[in-house]
């Protein structure tokens, strides 16, 4: 192999794309030709250099944040797929349901339609808020485990005292295997809600707390009412996410989880104190 032939294949050689025979011949040529060897060394060190500089590049935006954004988007896809089955996206389902509306109304029960409308207008935003938080919490837990740190607390303590002060509602920091790990306020359904996160080793339960005068129990749940002492429970059970609404004192407490193995009716995050 002469210099020209070797140089013609130089980039492919550096990229490890040359055939075995070519590779051997180029290697042999580089051994005996100092000039070509210099060129080879220059090219390959530039290559390595650029790779190293670029590979070092850590995007400033935190990858964790991007991960929870992606997870929330995947949840959306999941929900579209588990929504009303007549067609996967809600829009299509809506058309189908709307078309059936007249017929159903004539028969006399508008239940299907209201179910559907309540699902998208009331339940979905709560589910979404829960799922977004659940992903963040999982990411955070993973981090905490890795760093063997103890920084599980965000504002859990302060939320406990706030709820006690404002609503005489005493939150339980531990509930069976669940621990209250974080709290924040968030606007959902146009109302400012306190959004708390309880976590066990493998599941997340969100708890939303909202003043009763700002939130009314969806009509379609009134049938599901269960009374336990000073507590009224309303149950919404959908495959994507389970929601239980508690009316107690002057607040509504909403618990949410996507883990169907948790009996959410028994998940009572707090009690009224005198």
């Amino acid at each position, binding site marked *: 192999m002469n210099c020209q032939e070797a*140089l013609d294949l*130089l*980039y*492919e050689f550096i*990229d490890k*794309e040359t055939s075995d025979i070519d590779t051997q011949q180029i290697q042999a040529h580089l051994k005996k030709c100092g000039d070509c060897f*210099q*060129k080879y*060394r*220059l*090219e390959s*060190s*530039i*290559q390595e*250099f*650029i*790779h190293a*500089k*670029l*590979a*070092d*590049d*850590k*995007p*400033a*935006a935190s*990858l964790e944040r*991007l*991960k929870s*954004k*992606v997870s929330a*988007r*995947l949840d959306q*896809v*999941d929900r579209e*797929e*588990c929504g009303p*089955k007549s067609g996967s996206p809600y829009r299509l389902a809506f058309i189908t349901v709307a078309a059936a509306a007249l017929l159903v109304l004539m028969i006399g029960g508008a239940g299907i339609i209201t179910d559907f409308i309540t699902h998208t207008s009331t339940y979905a935003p709560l589910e979404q808020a829960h799922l977004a938080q659940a992903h963040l919490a999982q990411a955070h837990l993973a981090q905490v485990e890795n760093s063997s740190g103890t920084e599980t607390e965000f504002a859990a303590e302060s939320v406990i005292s706030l709820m006690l002060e404002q609503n005489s509602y005493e939150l339980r920091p531990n509930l069976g295997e669940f621990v209250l790990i974080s709290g924040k306020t968030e606007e959902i359904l146009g109302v400012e809600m306190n959004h708390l996160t309880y976590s066990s080793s493998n599941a997340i339960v969100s708890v939303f707390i909202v003043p009763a005068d700002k939130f009314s129990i969806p009509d379609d749940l009134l049938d599901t009412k269960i009374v336990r002492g000073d507590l009224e429970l309303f149950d919404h059970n*959908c*495959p994507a996410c389970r929601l239980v609404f508690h009316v107690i004192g002057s607040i509504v407490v909403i618990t949410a989880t996507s883990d*169907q193995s948790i009996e959410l009716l028994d998940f009572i995050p707090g009690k009224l104190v005198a």
Partner: protein
Amino acid sequence: MTGGTTTDRKKRTAFEAEALPHMDALMRTAVRMAKNENDAEDIVQETYVKAYRFWDKFETGSNCRAWLFRIMTNIFINEYRSKSRSPVTVDVDDLDDSFLYGQLSSSGREDNPEKELLAKIIDGDVRKAIDELPDDFRMVVVLSFLEGFSYEEIAEIADLQLGTVKSRLHRGRRLLQKKLYDYAVSNGYIKDRPK
């Protein structure tokens, strides 16, 4: 209601296990392709949504990383590539292959002339040089230099002929070297040696 919950969850778990670990790589390539982090984040999100929707089309055991890059490159080409496509009449052809070598070795004092230059070039210069490459060149250069994809994988990912990949990489390299050299001269890292 929907019998599919368990299957859906299985699908999600499998997808997350296979696809999510590639997010770092997708993101750093997206930043170089789109040249800004906001667009890059959007591109990565779109990539995952699309991949998830088409997950049943992905063959288990095949190269998930290349598959994700293919989806991403497609999104970039269709939705983000500069509308005013830069004319591909890039004047690289007047540069001979060993332009940089010629420039550096004519200084004559160093046995290892690239060392001096590379030691002075900073990260920002490299990023700037890459960002200034025309979209079509930048794509293949990033896929090769940064992600180490083979020519064949790049051809598959960017939907190009193998020969096109080779020639774009070749020309992309020469352009990059020229740019890095120009920065080095204009920043006073080295003195220009007229040919």
